[in-house]
């Protein structure tokens, strides 16, 4: 599917799905991060926890993406990138991302988005400068990819809360997983 079609699809699914107020989402996410900072203290550890939480969301969320968008086949990593950027981001965050900086092998790209509803009303105090505030997104993407047989690495590389001009997540394809029946399958 072309970029334009995907963008239209994302828009349609977004319009037809149930929504919560963006303020509620932003505030709830904020208080979650705050609580994690209380519980784990170290920003690095909080980054890890957010990633893990995201992973647990991602492995379930992918079903919802497929069911609602009715995209049943993802033919390549390049296609998948556009689906994440134009459909999934629109569905759950209401914003569209761009895929940029592909490497020559087409196994790495960056997801760029200017607006992030999760970071609304948020400022990062100096002592938490190592925190990737919206790191949950990395986990979600990683988890979702894993369920469609692609092992990826996901890393936040730019965040407006840190003074960057945009948000950027680097996604690296590590391995295409083969579909194998479970060992004791009869």
């Amino acid at each position, binding site marked *: 599917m072309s970029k334009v079609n995907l963008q239209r699809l994302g828009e349609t699914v977004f319009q037809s799905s*149930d929504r919560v*107020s963006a303020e*509620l989402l932003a*505030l709830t996410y904020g*208080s979650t991060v705050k*609580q994690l900072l209380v519980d784990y203290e170290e920003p690095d550890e909080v980054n890890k926890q957010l990633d893990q939480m995201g992973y647990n969301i991602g492995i379930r969320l992918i079903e919802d993406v497929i069911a609602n968008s009715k995209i049943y086949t993802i033919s390549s990593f390049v296609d998948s990138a556009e689906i994440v950027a134009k459909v999934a981001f629109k569905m759950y965050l209401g914003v569209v991302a761009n895929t940029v900086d592909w490497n020559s092998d087409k196994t790495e790209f960056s997801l760029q988005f200017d607006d992030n509803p999760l970071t609304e009303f948020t400022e990062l105090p100096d002592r938490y400068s190592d925190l990737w505030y919206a790191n949950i997104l990395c986990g979600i993407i990683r988890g979702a990819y894993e369920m469609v047989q692609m092992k990826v690495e996901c890393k936040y590389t730019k965040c407006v809360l840190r003074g960057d001009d945009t948000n950027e997540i680097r996604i690296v394809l590590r391995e295409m997983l083969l579909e194998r029946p479970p060992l004791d399958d009869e």
Partner: protein
Amino acid sequence: WKNGRDPQKTDAGNGSADVDQIAGSLNRKLALTNAVHGMGYDVGQRLIERLSTDHLKMETNLEVVKYICKDFWEETFKKQIDVLKTNNKGRFVLQDNNFRWIRKASRNDPSQLKVEDFLTFPAGIVCGAMNRLGVDCTVSADAASAPMCIFTVEIAQPPNNSRQQ
């Protein structure tokens, strides 16, 4: 149970380890519930601040509760409260016949989570919002027949009765 191992410990012989364990897990659950409630409280406070800026000052407890049931509920949970009851002595019972956040919750969840546990957070939200509007109260939630659920708001009586209905 303030320190978790109150009376049972002294008289139990072999059973004390179990009691400790149960007390430990109860304490853990209580601490978690408190933390989640606190998070909700925080969210409720900040949410209502943004929502109610253009609203006229609410004079009575009833006005505040009505605002919560209509505008606030609509904004936060995408519908209004279905039934509001009160005993006119500071207790308000808010009934939502189809609460959005537990519509798809399973009754037979194999994990230890009960449907009620999912209401800790929204109860905190309601409590925080009420508090921000100047009403000191506690909020508890019940989901015996989910997705119908009931929030009970118990308003703390001010010593000088300055806020009467």
